[in-house]
């Protein structure tokens, strides 16, 4: 068994109001960052997992996302990277 570091992006489903992203966009504009056109905010989860292989680690993290980490009603998730830890 090796140790893998799997990181996941969980983002609000497109089309749903994202008040946090909007608030941050507004705040950035107020601070003078006029060139920001859009901001979306999600979760970044990094898991250290013991597994036989990188593929097995990802499979297990996918199961975690389906079960707990992401809400299927409002969120989409994507595995961003998997490296040995």
């Amino acid at each position, binding site marked *: 068994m090796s140790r893998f570091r799997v990181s996941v992006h969980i983002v609000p489903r497109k089309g749903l109001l994202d008040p*946090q992203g909007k*608030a*941050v966009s*507004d*705040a950035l504009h*107020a*601070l003078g960052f006029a060139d920001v056109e859009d901001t979306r*905010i999600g979760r970044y989860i990094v898991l250290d997992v013991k597994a036989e292989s990188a593929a097995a680690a990802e499979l297990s993290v996918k199961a975690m996302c389906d079960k707990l980490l992401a809400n299927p009603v409002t969120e989409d998730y994507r595995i961003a990277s998997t490296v040995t830890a």
Partner: protein
Amino acid sequence: MSTTISAVQPRPGDPAITPELVAEHGLTPFEYEKLLGLLGREPTFTELGIVSALWSEHCSYKHSRPVLKTLPTEAPYVLQGPGENAGVISVGDGWAVAFKIESHNHPSAVEPYQGAATGVGGILRDVFTMGARPIAMLNSLRFGSLDTPRVRWLMAGVVKGIGDYGNCIGVPTVAGDVMFDPAYEGNPLVNAMCVGLMREDELITAKAEGVGNPILVVGARTGRDGIHGASFASEDLSEENEAKRPRVQVGDPFTEKLLLEASLELIRSGHIVAIQDMGAAGLTSSSAEMAERGDVGVVIDVTKVPVREEGMTPYEILLSESQERMLVVARRGHEEQAAAILRKWDLQAEVIGEVIAEPVYRVVEGDRVVAEFPGSRLVTECPQYFPEARESDVIVALRARDPHAVAERDEEADPVWTLTQLLSSPTIANKRWIYRQYDSQVRTSTVVGPGAADAAVVRLRGTNKALALKTDCNSRYVYLDPRMGGRIAVAEAARNVACTGGRPMAITNCLNFGNPKKPDVFFQFREAVFGMGEACRALGTPVTGGNVSLYNENPLGAVFPTPTVGMVGLIENIDHVTRSSFRTAGDSIILLGESTDELGASEYLSRVHNLTIGAVPSVDLDHEKRLVDALLAAIAAGVVHSAHDTSEGGVAVALAECCMGDRDATLGATVDVSEALVSSDRALLWGEAQGRVLVSTADVEGVLGIARAHGIAARTIGLVTAESRLVIRAGARTLDTPLAPLADAYFDAIPALMQRAAMATT
């Protein structure tokens, strides 16, 4: 636990004890000499760390204790005075109330969210470790001007931090006070107060007892949080090291909630003899204080402490300020039962030491003794200082200035303009932006929440009684005249509590000052405490505990001296609960107390003229006591429909507030506040003469009679009207305005300013 006694030895890798290292630990050469005398040898690095923490101002009160000793602390109903985690008073029927206030100023200046949150966490633990269930929180805040983005960021973070922690743990935040002045620009003040309820016989103190009893650490693991900066002087601050040592602590209210439930269950179970929060200086101060109170020795093995990170040294483990941890002395043989209770709440507990007969404070790391102090003198031997006190000439001169000589601004020709300025001053304006973020109702006992009366009212379920709670301190007064300001802080808190129908019972205080080694600051400290003491004696409200926060200053200067008062009052009959806003059109409005020509130190001068000058209004403590008694008698007689004291902004602002209980104020008032002996119309409207309360009533004679019987001046000044309009005649001036624009000014001021605040993104 094996207690093979060996000589104390430095650990390999410990830095050598040099004068520089001693100085970095905040010990003066005199204090170091004292330490050498105590030990009879050179201290180890670990011992130096322990002493630097225990002899710090925060833990030792070395500059403040002699002055604090002058405060009255006794009353027949005081069950626990100063010296414990919290004070406790009896409220009858076998019920007792524990309460305490504490500051988290410095952490909040660095990281407002976590600083404020962990401040709430700490004061909650102080109360539930007495055996009391927390039933209410209050907060007292001071910020610079909200016109500054940094201040808005600070306030947004502090309020969110207080809210998130209290909301999550399920204790309602019911009242508080907040004031804005450039004096707090670099040093915001964040004081949190907690009030808890218990049966009298459930009171437990943090006193280590019983030789052979095991000592447990309970709750969160110990990390490298908040360890004294100076202690790392011996290592170079590489980036790696920097990352190792977060300077802020992160609060975890979820774990705290478990700790709260588990602690109360443990205390009720009889399996433990003592419990104490690990606050400032963590394991070190909690264990040393428990040993000192119990007059016993203790031995602690740091290798048994559950840690969050690898390679932590004894020094780090002893001084860590990781949150949500408790130190518990269990009964020998009951360890397993205690552990079972903790397991139910998913909490970790580890035996890390025991109470011993030998009078020493000993820390071991496995077989090695890394620190050992004889007796309990470690805590009590701390040097005490009596610094020089001298009033600043600058302040003497400010106080001597005549406010009546300040020319009016042109706009003041219309007093409505002035009133609008005052109502939109963030210090006076409605604080809904703040308290809407606090769950003020959880526990379904909040009869009067924030904003609805001069104090909050929390019922005591199962009885017909309630508590009236409020924090207060007009620090501008204390700045201009610390003795008078100290008296007024207590008097105003008492008045606020009495306005809701509560008898003032006792106070806790949080003394926020600058550097005590400066004679002008120490003068403020001494005089303010003397003033508080005088008022507490006159009003019969002893001080059952509190907290001192010094060094609230930066190169530009110190904060306004801010001795915040947290007052607890008792409402004997829930039917007596009284609110501040007018209730019925046609009621008469009576002013209790007398107006004066005083205008100094007012919010009017500050807001309209940007001046902090003049004599502070004088307070007659005997009159304040009679005023409280008269108010309570009138409320008990059922003749008072509303009561509100006059404070910042004077009678005019107080009247406007009585009309604006909520946004769509429908009841107005028409009054004449002229008084024969007052020549200044400005003072009539905006002056802050003390000892005055506005009462509305349908029974004028009833109120006047009771006032007369108590020797309190009382005058009918006008009527509550069904028209939403405020009309005030004051000498030659008349203020006449619909309420709607006033309500806009009063309710929108803070939200409008905060809209510009950078959003907290977490």
